């Protein structure tokens, strides 16, 4: 501090501070402070007015006490009085006290604002600066409200001093950050841009910060700043450092301003004007060139400043992503940094390279540094740098180097830091999946992954393996073999056991031929690990066992023995016990054919966005550079030719639901499975498997079933191979017409509730599973569905559990049994009543039960067909309709629709191959109605002719209506 005149020394303050510093203990300090506070109180209370000096001194003491952490509840008034003083030191202390201590709701705020206004209006630049600093330091909404209009005025006024302008720009920036809604945009905005041309570099620096923030908010208003910024930048970069006044920092000309200008330019796309553009390119090249020059100083500040500008320039290059030469040069520059001594530089280089890797121009260039990056992964001492290296490897990975990178990452995983293991696991899993050409390699990789870092392999990863193995016939055998071998290890991770159990349960038969992996060996292998694992895994293994019974009837006895043992059938865990009991019963009661149906192989999973990717995204969270992430994502797909083997279709709300094993705590899946299993037994008691359209009928073991149950809605939504107009978005109320040709789908959806259906029909009987999905986060109370129908149709609700639907995502399942007594027209109505948020909700939906559901397809030869066609020649028996096609006349779609309608599609019956001919029998309780149909499309006219002949005229009429609607 400079020497002060005697009157300004504030000796009392110095003595007080030294007293406090000399205090031996906390208690002594508190005593001293109490004494001082009492003294100040008595002084403030005193009758005679204090002069400015002592006021300042006492306010200073209060401030000091406050900064020591004690409460100060007086002295504000005195501080405000100081504001109106004419002495700089007194004013300064007043402002200091106010910016530190005054809270926004105090009554004094009016007085303070008044004082600030006076100072802003004064011509004294020091006072103006003090006032501006106070506004910026407090930065509250009240301040913004009071001065949002004044500050811009000062900023753009012609006669304002440079230093005040600088403060005003920063003050405005602060107000804009804290309460952007209160700072009005006005004519000053355009004038702010011209501050970039100001003579004073301090003003330019401050203004650039302000403009950058404003430009991020409304880029259009500040477009003109680009050319100015480029001009300014080029002057700084290309100039000799003499004309930069004091703004040369360790031989680097105006580094802060350069960085800020480069940041500003990152708010905009590359300039369109060729001149500006070339000038900018020149600048960037100059910066890159400078990086190559030998350093002008050995001081760390010099290299820091230089590198700061360089990295910002590289960011800009990456942001523009338009100049291949620049990108490659940047990449090479970064490559040099990769081996730099400075850890920070290596970190930054890796981070920037990550972004470069996603540019199509520099991707190849980045790949050349792979060896360096891999060695960084191995040798780097700082974990955060290693993490960047992992990120970079992930970013630079493509089909050509995937195998190597994945191998390196797996290698690294063994020694990796615990904190980043899970992320690496996810990344390896994604890369392996994304770039897998050979799926056996994929299976190997993932199994390795589980072996190395089993604890870090999240559920999603192993769900994904199973999805892929099930969807790809070619790897199933290999997977089974590899898994079997992996399980031989004396200690294997539980996740491996889960994968193993699932895959062997599905495809164990593919390797059963080898005596080393005979059924019994497989079973014993799995069962030897059974007791070591947790309840969910055990549950999964039980399902595997029942699947084994189907796959290998020869070991049925052994498995039944295991299921019958007390440790299973009397297990204290309800879930396990139930599975054991049901599976045992199922294996005893059902014949092999039924078992084969029930325990059929899992149907392929619908293609969807990889759940692991979603998880990785979630894990990353809102990163530091979200937009860059986004860009990278887009780029990735385009660079790699959009090769996403697993398709990125609409993601269902919770992809992890898909495979969720019934957790032991929730009983829902278990009970649904029990009913399903028992139902299946009696429904299919005859050895007859209807080739029902839609999803395969075998909701097999209950893992599958619960999988299926929980995702049925999304399944139907995403893709249904046989569905007619499946891609129609879920409307508010979906037309029942959609269900004429298919049995599954979303029946109804609004903000609260989604109703999904799956149904199956056989002869005159039908069974419909209705799924109610609660889309809200609260419970529905008194949830009661009922069905109204006519005599012609008997329905009854078989199962209804729970009157309340629990939280979001939870499902309630209901089974309807339907019996067709005679032919009918009106569909039954499903009435749902429930209470949501105190309001009684009433929803009535037509159930899509139509007459054609009771069709039984009949195969017949051409001869038979025409014979019967002739028999039904009575005029009322035939109904013919000619109508215009509503959809495209794709013969495949039409075929699918006709099969979906329920009749058998007869090939080579009609002499004209483009015509479709079908036959079927409608079963009702009373009668059976034979039905023949013929559909003649006329592609030129976009017309169809539909002819139906049935033994009953009403039936023909109804069927014609139903079917003609479909085309």
């Amino acid at each position, binding site marked *: 501090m400079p020497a002060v005149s005697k009157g300004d020394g504030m000796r009392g303050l110095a003595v007080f501070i030294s007293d406090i510093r000399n205090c*031996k*203990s*906390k208690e002594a300090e508190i*005593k*001293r402070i*109490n*004494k001082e*506070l*009492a*003294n100040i*109180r*008595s002084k*403030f*209370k005193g009758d005679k007015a204090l002069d400015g000096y002592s006021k300042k001194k006492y306010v200073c003491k209060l401030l000091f006490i406050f900064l020591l952490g004690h409460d100060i*509840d*007086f002295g*504000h008034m005195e501080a405000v009085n100081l504001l109106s003083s004419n002495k700089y030191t007194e004013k300064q202390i007043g402002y200091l006290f106010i910016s530190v201590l005054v809270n926004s709701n*105090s*009554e*004094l705020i009016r007085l303070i604002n008044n004082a600030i206004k006076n100072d802003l209006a004064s011509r004294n630049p020091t006072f103006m600066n003090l006032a501006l600093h106070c506004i910026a330091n407090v930065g509250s909404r009240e301040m913004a409200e009071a001065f949002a209009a004044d500050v811009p005025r000062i900023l753009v006024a012609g006669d304002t001093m440079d230093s005040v302008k600088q403060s005003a720009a920063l003050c405005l920036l602060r107000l804009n950050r804290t309460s952007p809604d209160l700072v009005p945009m006005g004519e000053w905005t355009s004038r702010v841009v011209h501050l970039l041309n100001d003579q004073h570099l301090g003003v330019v620096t401050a203004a650039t910060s302000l403009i950058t923030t404003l430009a991020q908010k409304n880029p259009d208003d500040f477009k003109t700043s680009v050319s100015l910024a480029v001009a300014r930048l080029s002057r700084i970069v290309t100039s000799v450092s003499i004309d930069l006044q004091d703004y040369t920092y360790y031989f680097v000309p105006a580094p802060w301003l350069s960085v800020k200008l480069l940041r500003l330019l990152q708010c905009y796309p590359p300039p369109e004007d060729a001149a500006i553009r070339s000038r900018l390119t020149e600048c960037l090249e100059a910066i890159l060139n400078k990086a190559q020059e030998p350093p002008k100083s050995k001081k760390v500040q010099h290299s820091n400043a230089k590198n700061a500008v360089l990295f910002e320039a590289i960011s800009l290059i990456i942001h523009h992503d338009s100049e291949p030469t620049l990108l490659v040069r940047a990449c090479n520059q970064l490559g040099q940094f990769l081996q730099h001594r400075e850890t920070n530089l290596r970190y930054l280089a890796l981070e920037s390279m990550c972004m470069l890797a996603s540019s199509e121009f520099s991707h190849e260039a980045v790949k050349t540094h792979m060896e360096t990056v891999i060695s960084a992964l191995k040798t780097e001492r700082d974990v955060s740098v290693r993490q960047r290296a992992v990120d970079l490897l992930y970013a630079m990975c493509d089909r050509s180097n995937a195998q190597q990178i994945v191998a390196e990452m797996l290698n690294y995983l063994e020694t990796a830091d615990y904190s980043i293991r899970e992320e690496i696991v996810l990344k390896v899993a994604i890369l392996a999946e994304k770039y897998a050409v050979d799926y056996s390699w994929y299976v190997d990789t993932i199994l390795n992954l589980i072996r190395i870092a089993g604890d870090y392999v999240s559920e999603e990863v192993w769900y994904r393996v199973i999805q892929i193995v099930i969807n790809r016939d070619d790897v199933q055998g290999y997977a089974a073999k590899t898994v079997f071998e992996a399980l031989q290890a004396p200690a294997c991770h539980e996740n491996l056991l889960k994968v193993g159990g699932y895959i062997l349960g599905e495809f164990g038969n593919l390797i059963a031929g080898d005596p080393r992996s005979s059924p019994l060996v497989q079973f014993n292998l799995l069962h030897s690990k059974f007791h070591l694992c947790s309840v969910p895994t055990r549950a999964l293994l039980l399902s595997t066992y029942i699947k084994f019974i189907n796959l290998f009837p020869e070991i049925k006895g052994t498995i039944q023995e295991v299921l019958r043992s007390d440790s299973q059938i009397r297990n204290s865990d309800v879930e396990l016990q139930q599975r054991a009991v049901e599976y045992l019963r199922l294996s005893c009661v059902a014949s092999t054919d039924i078992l084969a149906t029930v325990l059929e192989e899992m149907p392929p999973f619908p293609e969807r966005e990889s759940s692991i990717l979603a998880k990785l995204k979630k894990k990353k969270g809102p990163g530091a550079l979200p937009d860059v992430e986004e860009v990278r994502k887009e780029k990735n797909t385009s660079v790699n030719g959009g090769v996403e083997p697993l398709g990125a279709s609409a993601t269902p709300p919770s992809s992890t639901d898909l495979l969720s094993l019934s957790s032991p705590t929730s009983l829902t899946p278990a009970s649904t499975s029990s009913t399903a299993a028992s139902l299946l037994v009696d429904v299919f008691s005859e050895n007859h498997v209807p080739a029902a359209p839609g999803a395969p009928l075998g909701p097999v073991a209950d893992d599958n079933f619960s999988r299926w149950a929980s995702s049925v809605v999304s399944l139907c939504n995403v893709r249904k191979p046989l569905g007619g107009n499946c891609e129609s978005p879920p409307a508010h109320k979906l037309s029942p017409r959609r269900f004429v040709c298919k049995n599954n789908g979303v029946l109804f959806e609004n903000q609260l509730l989604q109703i999904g259906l799956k149904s199956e029909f056989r002869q005159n009987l039908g069974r419909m599973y209705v799924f109610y999905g609660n889309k809200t986060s609260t419970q529905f109370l008194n949830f009661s569905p009922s069905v109204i129908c006519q005599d012609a149709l008997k329905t009854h609700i078989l199962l209804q559990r729970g009157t309340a639907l629990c939280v979001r995502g939870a499902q309630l399942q209901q089974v309807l049994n339907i019996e067709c007594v005679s032919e009918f027209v009106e569909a039954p109505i499903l009435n749902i009543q429930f209470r949501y948020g105190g309001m009684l909700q009433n929803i009535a939906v037509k159930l899509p039960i139509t007459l054609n559901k009771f069709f039984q397809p009949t195969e017949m030869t051409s001869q038979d067909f025409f014979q019967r066609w002739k028999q039904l020649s009575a005029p009322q028996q035939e109904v013919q309709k000619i109508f215009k096609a509503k959809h495209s006349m794709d013969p495949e779609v039409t075929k699918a629709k006709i099969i979906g309608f329920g009749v058998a599609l007869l090939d080579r019956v009609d002499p004209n191959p483009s015509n479709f001919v079908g036959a079927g029998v409608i079963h009702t309780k009373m009668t059976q109605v034979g039905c023949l149909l013929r559909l003649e499309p006329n592609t030129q006219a976009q017309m169809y002719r539909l002819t139906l002949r049935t033994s009953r005229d009403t039936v023909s009429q109804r069927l014609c209506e139903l079917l003609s609607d479909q085309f």
Partner: protein
Amino acid sequence: MIGGLFIYNHKGEVLISRVYRDDIGRNAVDAFRVNVIHARQQVRSPVTNIARTSFFHVKRSNIWLAAVTKQNVNAAMVFEFLYKMCDVMTAYFGKISEENIKNNFVLIYELLDEILDFGYPQNSETGALKTFITQQGIKSQTKEEQSQITSQVTGQIGWRREGIKYRRNELFLDVLESVNLLMSPQGQVLSAHVSGRVVMKSYLSGMPECKFGMNDKIVIDKQGKGGTADDAGKSGKQSIAIDDCTFHQCVRLSKFDSERSISFIPPDGEYELMRYRTTKDIILPFRVIPLVREVGRTKLEVKVVIKSNFKPSLLAQKIEVRIPTPLNTSGVQVICMKGKAKYKASENAIVWKIKRMAGMKESQISAEIELLPTNDKKKWARPPISMNFEVPFAPSGLKVRYLKVFEPKLNYSDHDVIKWVRYIGRSGIYETRC
């Protein structure tokens, strides 16, 4: 078991560090400093758990004593030990201060070696310790003396050595009590208890057997049954109900359990014979009657009356009444009839001191407090008025009935021993809400 013992100064620098067990690492010293001594918020609990290590600390003026353990020890035992340690140190070099500790650090290590073995407390009797740990230079001891020490330390009566001889057999007995009170402004007792100690100083020859008797209700009632009804009625009034008590290790507990009689062979010199606590029929020596009136926002009028409530012949001493003032006090005027009163800004209180006061008297103080209006809406919490005093009787009503000394081997009888008994009642936390 205690794993280690550390002594810190007020800055948290380690003065003494003695580790007894391997499970206490070097970082334990720092852990305590960082988490307790230098903690942002004052740590009030005497037991702190840091990373599965327990720290038990006591603070004497500016010195922290901390015992460390990783095991599940008896916390009361550890604190008992720490207090004993303080007593031992005081007995050796006086006040526990940083300077004294630095000057005597060799002695302290020696003591720590002796009174703790592998974390188990050993003999911590000052008298016994002083026979073999001395502050003077090492005096070469004869073989006989050495063997005597061994037999004494390992023998049954570790607290007293043999062959003590005094020309005058003397005995001093102090009953020291502190009375704690919390009273409502209306004079209702919210809580009150007395915690007392019987401290003895004995200068007796040989191995005397002592028997101590007091007006314990259980003993009196037992005797009352045997004696006349009149006797029982008379003494019943005088007897007190002791809630709980602890004894010095010399007291034969088996005898106390069976006959409720306190018999012992006393250590030589000063020691604490017993500690006790009573909660019933406490004599409250002073009554405080506060009167606080707020006059507007800037003034407060306080009037406090104290009444002494004991025999007029007795004199209370060192009376001090502490009347808290609001935090925004800017000036105080005090008028009192007796003693001296002063506003102490550093403590935010008016302190009123009276040197002496006889029983059944009354005195009053009145003060006007000026306040500085603040923009803080917080109301003053009105802390209670506290009081300190010393009275020459036991507020619990305890009376020493007898203290008999038997020494069968030497020829002096109970009558030859000169006995002194003194009662001192002090204030503990003696507060009245206002």
